[in-house]
């Protein structure tokens, strides 16, 4: 049960998107998310949808993987839609439902917001699906490097992140083991109300934490024994270097940004009230 949790759910495939430099993917995803919030009419969203569909197609990630990413936000999506639909004033009143009035503006905001959220999550999960967690931390480290000058420990943060990612499966396995061991000793983890269940977690969490600290201590020693002394003077086995395809990706992104921005603002393309 506990093993189903996947973090940074990477989908391995040999696609053009997978091969891009992680920095390209991070920056382009950010730009894409920004572009979603600049649109004032339907044309922009149509443009964004086409762009996203092409990217998904290029990434060779099955559609159902992407849909899976949307599941956790369904509740959030519903709440956003309801609030926007019923509580936004402005424009002509389309229909009244008990005490709530649905206005033209409300319907418009609700629909736009839904599209935005869905595209936003899809775009972001496309990035995590096509980039290994380690490549992501590497990319972030390199991008945030200028922050070193204002004494932000960028290298250390990225090291912490990649070690955390490495130990997630190990600690999950350990949790499994401890749960079994405690069940074998008569611990009841299943029954009772929420408070009782929370209390039953204590005999699992305590040994888990003790062991995590022991591992941390061992790992720190092993890293020092292999001459780890922070980021200064360190070389990289796999340095990030931009390739031709990365520059092409940036160029495509720039074209998209300009086109989508102008279309989303100035293209006179309207369907009914949208």
């Amino acid at each position, binding site marked *: 049960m506990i093993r189903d949790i996947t973090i940074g759910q990477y989908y391995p495939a040999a696609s053009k998107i997978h091969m891009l430099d992680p920095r390209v993917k991070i920056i382009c995803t950010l730009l894409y998310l920004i572009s979603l919030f600049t649109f004032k009419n339907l044309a922009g969203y149509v443009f964004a949808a086409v762009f996203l569909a092409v990217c998904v197609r290029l990434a060779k990630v099955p559609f159902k993987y992407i849909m899976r990413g949307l599941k956790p936000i369904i509740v959030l999506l519903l709440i956003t839609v309801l609030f926007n639909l019923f509580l936004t004033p402005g424009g002509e009143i389309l229909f009244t439902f008990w005490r709530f009035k649905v206005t033209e503006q409300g319907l418009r905001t609700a629909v736009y917001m839904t599209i935005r959220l869905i595209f936003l999550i899809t775009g972001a999960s496309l990035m995590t699906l096509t980039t*290994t*967690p*380690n490549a992501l931390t590497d990319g972030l480290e390199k991008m945030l490097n200028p922050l070193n000058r204002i004494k932000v420990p960028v290298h250390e943060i990225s090291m912490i992140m*990649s*070690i955390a*990612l*490495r130990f997630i*499966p*190990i600690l999950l396995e350990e949790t499994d083991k401890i749960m079994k061991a405690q069940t074998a000793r008569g611990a009841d983890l299943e029954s009772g109300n929420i408070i009782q269940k929370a209390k039953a977690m204590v005999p699992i969490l305590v040994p888990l934490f003790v062991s995590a600290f022991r*591992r941390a201590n*061992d*790992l720190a*020693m*092993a*890293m*020092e*024994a*292999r*001459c*780890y*002394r922070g980021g200064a*003077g*360190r*070389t*990289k*086995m*796999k*340095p990030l270097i931009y390739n031709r395809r990365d520059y092409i990706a940036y160029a495509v992104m720039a074209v998209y940004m300009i086109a989508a921005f102008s279309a989303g603002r100035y293209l006179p393309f309207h369907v009914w009230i949208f």
Partner: protein
Amino acid sequence: MEMIKADKLIFEYEKRDEEGNVISTSRAVDEVDLDIKPGDFIAILGHNGSGKSTLAKHMNAILVPTDGSMWVDGKDTSREEHIWDIRQSAGMVFQNPDNQIIAAVVEEDVGFGPENLGVPTEEIWERVEESLRSVGMISYRHHSPNKLSGGQKQRVAIAGVLAMRPKCIVLDEPTAMLDPNGRKEVLKSVAELRQKENITVILITHYMEEVVDADHVIVMDHGHIVMQGTPREIFSQVEELKRYRLDVPQVTLLADELRKRGLDVPAGILKKEELVNALCR
């Protein structure tokens, strides 16, 4: 010049109360002298709490002596400026295979040491390839360490140390958490290393079977060196070994019993074949 030399080395663990005052000290290593020459295969044996791991951690400057001194490759470990040179020339492999692998891909983990040393990128790749080849793990280079067996993880850890091009490798109970097959794998890699690369090997263990190929065996108990000599010399003193709570290999034990009953079997038999030959003579 000695690879590793200890002179009256003492190490004390301090127990402190909440204000940081020392309540009690316990001596883990007590006046130990060592002389290890380049290319030697030294085994340090001892029961739990004999101080063998504490001694090993001195060879990598993870611990520094409370009193006395330790030199690695002619450098004093208590001098701060030598610490990284020492750690590069005396690599260390630890007991728990999971807790010493840093990266999420085998080859990146092997590259971790050279990265820290500031080795240029192309050379890191060469070293990684060479090290993985010499422990027979090259075909696993793109795998995640989580999917490997204990013995394989330990071999990756050895490769990680080799990639730093050490003169000496200290293995601190590398097989304690492995199954018999994993133990065999790791010991085979260590034996091959010695033959091919001529690296000084210091193996710390409490399995006596693992030390029969060593050039020199040191037995520790309560922080002292209590016995030392060639494996044959050590194993011929079965009664004394039992006193230090060490399990003598079965063959040696059997040969010893036979000798006591009056059979003409030489003392200090280490391997099955030797006993067979002695009996069939």
